[in-house]
């Protein structure tokens, strides 16, 4: 008990702006389930298990990661929508849950869940072979003007695919956009020269990046990435495209205010933890805390823009 108390005192010290009453309320549950639609070992799963290790002590609860696979989030959303809204169960969301909601018409969709807080943005980058001829995004576009470009995205209906389709349209070039089963086989096809460029999460390719086999041409974020200060953004290169691959948390509809507040405080605090910072910086995740008040509108906006895009391309009718 004293330990938990100390943690919450620390939380107050760290967050002077936070309402003081939050410090006295311990989280009302001892065990909290974190649901992910990712398989064990997958991107979201690793992120969540890392987070759980550092967040558990901060909140004074035991965090259990549960993989509810199937239907790219459809089953996880159903699980959450039918769970009691008391803070015992939370879902780790990524853009996938929006895409699945829109494309697969599941019984429960993103509208049945309450966005809680955002934690990170993933850096989406454009990369090529290090021994290849391309050095800038302009080279890529120029190459695609003279002959058909060969570009790759991770999965069929994904943020990355959407970004490449939009880039192709904006530049007015011809390019084959090949989708894959994930970031891994995409990277292989860039490494072996089948594809000229790939778009993916920075963390998936960092091993090859460190070994100097891949070169980053541009980042899709709004500003340059701290780890890659020399790499321009896509926007700087002249195309108004920004990708925000969010990683956040959502719960069942109607979460009580004190639960929401507890998560807001705990996430801010864990993001400031220097040990955890080492972990997430190595994974090239950018902390991007968003409070509950901001996160709902953010998700709605993301969803409506995605839906507009999917209707425009005829994926949705």
């Amino acid at each position, binding site marked *: 008990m004293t330990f938990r108390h100390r943690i919450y005192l620390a939380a107050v010290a760290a967050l002077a702006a936070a309402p003081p009453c939050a410090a006295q309320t311990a989280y009302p549950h001892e065990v909290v389930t974190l649901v992910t639609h990712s398989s064990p070992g997958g991107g979201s799963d690793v992120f969540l298990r890392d987070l759980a290790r550092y967040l558990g002590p901060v909140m004074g609860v035991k965090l259990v990661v549960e993989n509810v696979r199937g239907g790219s989030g459809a089953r996880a959303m159903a699980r959450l929508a039918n769970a009691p809204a008391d803070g015992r169960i939370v879902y780790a969301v990524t853009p996938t849950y929006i895409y699945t909601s829109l494309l697969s018409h599941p019984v429960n969709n993103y509208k049945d869940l309450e966005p809680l807080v955002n934690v990170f943005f993933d850096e989406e980058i454009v990369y090529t072979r290090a021994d290849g001829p391309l050095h800038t995004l302009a080279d890529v576009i120029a190459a695609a003007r003279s002959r058909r470009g060969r570009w790759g995205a991770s999965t*069929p*209906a994904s943020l990355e*695919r959407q970004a490449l*389709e939009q880039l192709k349209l904006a530049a007015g070039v011809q390019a084959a956009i090949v989708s894959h089963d994930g970031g891994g086989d995409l990277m292989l096809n860039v490494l072996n020269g089948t594809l000229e460029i790939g778009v993916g999460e920075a963390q998936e390719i960092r091993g090859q990046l460190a070994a100097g086999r891949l070169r980053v041409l541009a980042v899709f974020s709004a500003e340059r990435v701290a780890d890659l200060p020399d790499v321009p953004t896509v926007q700087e290169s002249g195309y108004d495209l920004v990708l925000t691959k969010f990683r956040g948390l959502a719960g069942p509809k109607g979460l009580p205010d004190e639960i929401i507040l507890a998560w807001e405080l705990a996430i801010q605090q864990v993001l400031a933890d220097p040990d955890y910072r080492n972990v997430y910086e190595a994974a090239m995740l950018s902390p991007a805390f968003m409070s509950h008040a901001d996160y709902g509108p953010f998700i709605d906006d993301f969803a409506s823009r995605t839906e507009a895009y999917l209707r425009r*391309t*005829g*994926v*949705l*009718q």
Partner: protein
Amino acid sequence: MVRQLTCSAILLLIAAGYYSVASQITRSALADEIGPAGLPVVYALVLATVALALAAKAVFRPLLLRTADATASAGEPTLGFLLRRAGGVFAIGVGYVLIVPLAGYFLTLIMVIAAMALYQGERTSARLATIAVAGAASFWLLFVQLLGIPMPSLWGA
């Protein structure tokens, strides 16, 4: 020959049903030239062709080659008996799927083990009851306790 022709007819039906669903798959701007329905349509056509060829073979092959007629040997069960018995096992399986959300993993498993053993000719006895309960208990220990699989449970947790 009747059996072979029935087989061809069923395959042809599967091909037709699959084709009709495949032809309704939505085609989006993200699709390639072949499209999501491309290969499924090819598969349906290949299956239909094979089904017709099998039917033709069933009719014409006896004219080319005398094959020993596959008459049921003495020990073999008749078709009707086989299907009836198989239907019973299937029914027990369906029973499991329907009952387990209500009665929970442990109790339903006792019922299934007992039902299968009885169906296969064991008599109702204390031994059967003991084996069913002990069996269900060991499955419960293995899957729920050791492997931590959240089986449907009567007690909610």
